[in-house]
C-alpha cells in the first residue's frame, strides 16, 4: 500500500493527477474558507459587479446577477464530488455482488442476472439517466439515483467476467473440496482477486461520474438553481457566447481539470495494479 503511494508520487503524470485531485477535494471540503464570496453560492445579487470578466477582485469574473464565479465553482466541486462518492458507494457493491454471484454460481442465476444487466447496458449510458430524470423531479437526490441505476451494470459485467474465469482456478476447486459454502468462496476467495480491477475502475469512474452528472445538469435535469453546478453553469453561460465567455469557459475548464486529475491517477493505478478487463 505504501509502495503504491510512493510509485504514484514518483511518476510525473500521476503526481500531477494527485495534485489536481487534492486541490479539487480540498477546495470542496474547505469551500467555506477558501471561497472569497461564500454566500454567492446562494441566491445573492450584486448588480454593482455583474457580468464582469476576470479581475483581481473576481478571479474568474461574475455572472449575470453579480455572483463571483470562482466561489460558485468551488461550491460546485462539492456537489460533484458528493455525487460521485454516493453513486460509487452504492453502485459498486450492488454491481459487484450481482456480477460475483452470476459469475460463480452460473446456470440459471447467471442467465437471469446477466440478461438483466444486458438490458441496462443496452441503453446508451446517458440516455437512461436522462430518461429517468425526465420522469423524476430534478433534485440532487434524484440525480444520484438516476446515475446509480445506470452505473451498477458496468461493475456487474466487470466482476462477472473475472469471476467466471477465476472459478476454474485451482484455489476455488480446493475450497470446494474442503466444503466451503458458496458464499464463503465468492466473498473470501474470488472477490479479493477482483479488487484490483474494481479499484482501478472506481478511480477512473469518479471522473466519468462527474462527466455524466454535469451532462445531466447541462440539460437542465440535475440540481436546480440557485445551487451551483458545473454543468448547469456551462449551459447558462453558453447563451452569452462569445461576449461573456468566462461564464462557460471557466466552469468547463473546472470539469476538465477535475476529471483529468482522476484519470491520471486511474491510469497510473491501472499500470501498477496490472488490472485487465
Amino acid at each position, binding site marked *: 500500500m505504501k509502495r503504491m503511494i510512493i510509485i504514484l508520487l514518483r511518476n510525473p503524470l500521476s503526481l500531477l493527477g494527485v495534485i489536481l485531485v487534492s486541490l479539487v477535494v480540498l477546495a470542496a471540503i474547505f469551500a467555506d474558507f477558501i471561497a472569497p464570496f461564500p454566500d454567492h453560492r446562494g441566491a445573492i445579487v450584486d448588480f454593482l459587479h455583474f457580468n464582469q470578466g476576470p479581475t483581481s477582485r473576481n478571479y474568474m469574473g461574475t455572472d449575470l446577477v453579480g455572483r463571483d464565479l470562482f466561489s460558485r465553482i468551488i461550491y460546485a466541486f462539492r456537489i460533484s464530488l458528493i455525487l460521485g462518492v454516493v453513486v460509487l458507494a452504492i453502485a459498486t457493491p450492488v454491481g459487484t455482488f450481482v456480477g460475483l454471484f452470476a459469475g460463480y454460481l452460473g446456470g440459471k442465476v447467471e442467465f437471469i442476472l446477466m440478461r438483466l444487466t444486458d438490458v441496462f447496458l443496452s441503453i446508451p449510458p446517458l440516455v437512461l439517466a436522462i430518461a429517468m430524470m425526465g420522469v423524476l423531479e430534478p433534485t440532487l437526490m434524484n440525480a444520484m439515483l438516476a446515475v446509480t441505476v445506470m452505473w451498477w451494470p458496468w461493475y456487474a459485467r466487470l466482476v462477472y467476467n473475472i469471476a467466471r474465469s477465476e472459478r476454474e482456478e485451482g484455489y476455488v476447486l480446493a475450497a470446494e473440496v474442503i466444503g466451503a459454502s458458496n458464499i464463503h468462496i465468492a466473498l473470501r476467495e474470488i472477490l479479493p482477486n477482483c479488487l484490483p480491477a474494481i479499484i482501478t475502475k472506481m478511480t477512473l469512474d469518479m471522473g466519468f461520474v462527474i462527466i455524466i452528472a454535469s451532462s445531466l445538469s447541462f440539460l437542465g435535469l440535475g440540481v436546480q438553481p440557485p445551487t451551483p453546478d458545473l454543468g448547469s453553469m456551462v449551459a447558462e453561460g453558453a447563451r452569452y457566447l462569445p461576449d461573456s465567455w468566462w461564464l462557460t*469557459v471557466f466552469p468547463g475548464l473546472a470539469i*476538465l481539470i477535475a476529471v483529468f486529475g482522476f*484519470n491520471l491517477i486511474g491510469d497510473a493505478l491501472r499500470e501498477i495494479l496490472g488490472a485487465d478487463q
Partner: protein
Amino acid sequence: MFLVLRLLARRLGISLIVLVGVSMLIFGIARVIPGDPARIALGPNATVEQVTNLREELHLNDSIVVQYGYFLADLLKGELGISLYTNRPVTTDIAQFLPATLELVIFAGILMVGIGLPLGIASARYRGRWPDHVIRLVSLLGVSAPSFVWAVILMLLFAFYLPIFPIAGRIADTYEITRVTGFLLFDTLLSGNFSAFGDALRHIILPAFALAVSGIGQAARLTRANMVETYDKPYIEMAHAFGFSARRIANKFAFKPSMIPSLTIIGLDFAAMLGNAFLVEAVFAWPGLSRYGVAVILRKDLNAIIGTVLIISATFLIVNLIVDLMIALLNPRIRYSQRGST
C-alpha cells in the same frame, strides 16, 4: 461461413429479448411518474370530464400489465402513439429527426476511427519517445471532459474568434433540399447541388468533432494498449528478423491482430456517442432526435419518450451486432472454430 450466420442469428435473438426488456423498463419508469399523464396532456384548463375520457382512451385505469399489453400490441403494429409536443405521430417525429442524429453520429464515428486509430498506432510504434507522450497526454485530455465542453470550446475558437465555421444548424436557410434519405450530405450530392453540399459539410464539422473528441481519445488509448501488447509477441520479432520495415510492421503485421480486441470497445464507444449526441445537438442547435428527446422529456411526453428511447436502444443494439459480426469476420479463429462468443 455458416458458423458466422449461426452466431449472428443467436445474437439477434438475444438482442430481441433484451430489447423487450428495455421496453418493459422504460415503460415501467414512464408509468411510475407522479402526476396524471392525461391531465398534463390536456393542459390546466381541461374539464374533469375530458380528463376522465382521455384516461379511458389511454387505458390509464387498467393495471400496469394490461397497459403494457396494449403498448406492445400497438408497437407491433408500428404505432407509438401521438406526441403531445408536436401533436404528430411519434413515428413521424422519429422519421424526421433520426437521420440528422445518425448523420452526425456516423460522421463523428468516421472521425473517431480515422483519427484515433492512426494516433494509437503512431503512439505504439514510437513507444517511450516524445510522440508517444504527447499523444497519450492529448488522448487523456480528450476523454476528460464531456462533449458539451468541447462543443463550447470549439464553437468559441472556430466559429466566433476564427469565423471559419457556422455557429448552428445543419444548413443555411437559403437552401431548399429535396429529402431523399434524410442525410443531408447524401441528398445534396444526389441532387447535384454542390454548394449546398459544401454548406452542409461546413455545418457538420464542428458538432461532429465535438462529439468525436472523447471517442478519438479512447480509440487512440485503446489501440496503443493493444498494439503494445502485440509488439511483444514472437511473431513480431520474427517480422523484424525478416527485415520488414518498422512502418510496415506497425501498419500491417501488428495492427491487424491488435484490432480484434479493440473492436468491441470501439463499437461501444461509437454507440455511446448516440447518447452524447444530446449534448452536442443542444449546443449547436442541431435538429436531431436527441434535441427532440430532451424536449419531450422536459414535457413529460410519455409516448415520445418511450419511442425515442426504444429507437436509440435498438440502434445501439444494431451497432453492437454489426461490430460483433465484423469481429467474427476478422478473427479467423472464430470463423473456423466451433466456439461462439458470449
